[in-house]
């Protein structure tokens, strides 16, 4: 596969390490009320879609960017690649 890195252009997938569902960005706050349930859902519940999937890839043999790659799990077509940091900020994450 080829991942079109937003900063570096097309790179071979061998340069990357896969993590999984991009929902991992949405980590709950451990001090919140009901954190145990929220963390249970966050850590253990995953969709396994046949189709479009947003997932985290780490450019380990490259610039160490974490990327959110939108990939079709059936065809492996990649329709979007974003810096995970931008995605996290767009979700309201900061410090």
């Amino acid at each position, binding site marked *: *596969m*080829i991942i079109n890195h937003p900063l570096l252009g097309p790179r071979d*997938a061998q340069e990357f*390490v896969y*993590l999984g569902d991009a929902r*991992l*960005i949405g*980590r*709950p*706050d*451990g*001090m919140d009320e009901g*954190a*145990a349930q929220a*963390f*249970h859902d*966050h*850590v*253990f519940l995953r969709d396994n879609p046949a189709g479009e999937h947003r997932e*985290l890839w*780490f450019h*380990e043999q490259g610039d*160490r*960017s*974490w990327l959110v790659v939108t990939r079709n799990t059936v*065809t*492996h*077509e*990649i329709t979007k690649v974003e*810096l*995970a*940091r931008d*995605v*996290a*900020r767009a979700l309201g*994450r*900061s*410090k």
Partner: protein
Amino acid sequence: MSQSNRIPGGLIDRSGTLSFTFDGRSYQGHPGDTLASGLLANGVRLMGRSFKYHRPRGPISAGSDEPNALVELRTGARQEPNTRATVAELFDGLSAQSQNRWPSLAFDALAINDRLSPFFAAGFYYKTFMWPAAFWEKVYEPIIRRAAGLGSLSRLPDPDVYDKGFLHCDILVIGAGPSGLAAALTAGRSGARVILADEDFRMGGRLTAETQGVGGLSGADWTAQALAELSGLPNVRLMTRTTVVGAFDHGIYGAVERVSDHVPVPAEGKPRQILWRIYARRAILAAGATERMIAFEDNDRPGIMLAGAVRAYANRWGVAAGRRVAVFTNNDDGLRTAADLRAKGLEIAAVIDSRKGEEVTGSAGRLGLRSIKVRDGSGRTRTVECDALAVSGGWNPNLHLTSHHRGRPVWDEAIAAFVPGPGGPAGLLPAGAAAGHLTTHGALKTGAKAAAAALADLGHKAAAFDLPEAEDAPVSITPKWHVPGKGRAWVDPQNDVTVKDVKLAHQEGFRSVEHLKRYTTLGMATDQGKAGNVLGLAVMAEMTGQSIPETGTTIYRPPYTPVAMGALAGRSREKDFKPTRLTPSHKWAAEQGAVFVEVGMWLRAQWFPKPGETHWRQSVDREVLATRASAGICDVTTLGKIDIQGKDAGAFLNRVYANTFATLPVGKVRYGLMLREDGIVMDDGTTARLAEDEWVMTTTTANAVPVFRHLEFCRQCLWPDMDVQLISTTEAWAQFSVAGPNARRLLEKVVDQDISDAAFPYMACANITVCGGLRARLFRISFSGELAYEIAVPTRYGDAMIRALMKAGEEFDAVAYGTEALGVMRVEKGHVAGNELNGQSTALNMGLGKMVSKKKDAIGMVLSQREGMVAKDGLRLVGVKPVDPSQPLTAGSHFIAMGKPATAAHDDGWLTSVVYSPHLGHSIALGYLKDGSARMGERLRTVNLLKKTEVEVEIVSPHFIDPEGERLRA
């Protein structure tokens, strides 16, 4: 017998002669021959034995679809099994052996299987070897293993080099027949970067094998003209002997180039093969088509071949498959074979055209065809003497690559064959025969058209390609799959699947094509169904009364043809399989005669034997005792080091470690426990605060990379606005542990600053200088339990540093110690390491539950408090000593209460780490024991059923030495 079947013509070089041997007999051929054409020229048609019944077999094809003529090529370390004689290029001195026969090809003892065939019908594995169960390991499996498989391995290391390479192009053209050449000319003339790859050593595809011309030239001459033009274009790369074996994601194609398979030994500096990864923006599949057999009784005798192959041997190689040839066909293409052979002056014994109601019902000849039985339209049978039979059952497009992304072929009634369906790899355009256009005209036209389409996609303007005149006879075929009869009619010759087997599968309910395949092994041989798949499912369709499209087809996976393991491995073999990382003191340690151990990719000194020490324990015990008595030095560079800087570094550490860090004063070190989000311990180590916003984290050796990746995840994905910067400095600093009561006195000789206990107390850290000005880092931390420091210098000074430290240590009799002594001392002190950090343990298990702060949010904090993980009677880290000190303990032993049986129901935990403690004079261990902290002083059994050991032990504190930590603070 000298080339008795060689006839005039062909594209071989008769001015040269090549000598070769087959099963020890010498023969001669010409440059341009394959092993199969060379043997056939010499009248040899028996080339192998079938897989199951050991039936005598000869080649049926002239290409990579060959199921029968599989041989062992070359001898010694270069011996290769299962090589298709039809594609093995002849060279002088080539040596080939037949396989799957004993004692000889002509007389094979296991041919008895053929007589026993009723016992070996489809599914016999599942029926025959079922019971008694006890027979599996001792009786059935060894027999099956001996009988299974075709060729044999040399069991010697492959002496050749295999390479990997990367290529980029606009258009990859797969196959250099008429469609591929038309595509390459169109694309090449347009200026696009083109790769034209063909598996053959001679480009041209069927143009080399047919007598019809192209544009007024012979097929071979037109090909030569096209290749001359292409090789003059700087944007075109021609690759012969290169099979595109797979279509992978995003326009990546795998190809194997057989660089040196056609020479006895690779030339100096040349690899045997290259595995290419071709990045192609578009690809054109111009892989042609493969002819198929018609099944009739005993249709597998040597001499019975595909009609197109018989034609190819005559036209390309100047070889007569026989002196008296019969033709059996269900389409017009078969008739060409008769015409071409007649033109060559060969005798045509009969032309049996199934469309006229005639059919071949059987054959005779033990090791080669002697005659066939023919039934005419009125039902009368006659015997026809012939030594070759050319069979044409129609042509199957080579659409394999279009299935590599699960695209399903669709049935085309007009040519009675599957053609590429939807769902093929994006950017792959089938053309020519591979797309079902079986005429030369159709191939040229669709090849050029596919190239034009690809060029348009890429924004190139297609150059003109004037279609040369070529044959365009419509395909006239009336499907004829098999001739009904009582005997066995072969569908898949290599795996010995017959029409009867397909019938049996149907009868027993294995009717879907996927079941048919697995039950009968249809299409599971080295040719992966090229010879028999469509025929097999057509027979199944007949049985079920369904049409072929309703019956469906299995699809193809990579590779298109078998790929040698060596090509897949490339240079990554033996010591080059993974890199070796050497510690900065490696050279010095090697000079001391150290014994090294692999730790991940690192080589670390395990112990340093002294003269007179004959057992490793002598060395390790000495290193431990000397360190505890005075001083020891150990290279600890392999531990991961991560520099963490930025205004928010402290807050960041607070969130990635379970314990508190933000409050750590400058100049101090703290032990940190890192959890995974699910609450399990991920890693541990120390982190030092060298300045207000400058921290240094250490990780375990094994987790250096995963922890760094995790921290980057936290920084970029969870808290994107924190001011935190990370860099891995594992390889930037050479780090040494200096431990023992004299550690400070030793270091004072090399460190330029005051490191007295008052100036540099326990858990202090600082940027310092050594040896009169070299920048260094000093940490007062201890893994051994002794007064200890870790000192780091830039890596390039590591060798000088170990020598300086050892010299400074001479007056204290300081020793160098290795990983074994390190392990002994950490167990004596009760520190956890890899055996305890096993990916299942919690902080509470390790006796570190109090470290998990609940006053702040940190990774893993919430889930570490789950009910099941904080159970009062859960596993706890304990120390273990044998009741009888003379008894050794065994790692991995399980705790069983006294008097209880050693079963899982009574399992109370296990020993994680066992060492001999020279300090205490007996074996000691760490272990996880249920409710362990409440069971101090209890006696238990430790049982190891694998090693058959059982030792009575006493549960003690895991801190075997200095539990109060007085030595650390000395």
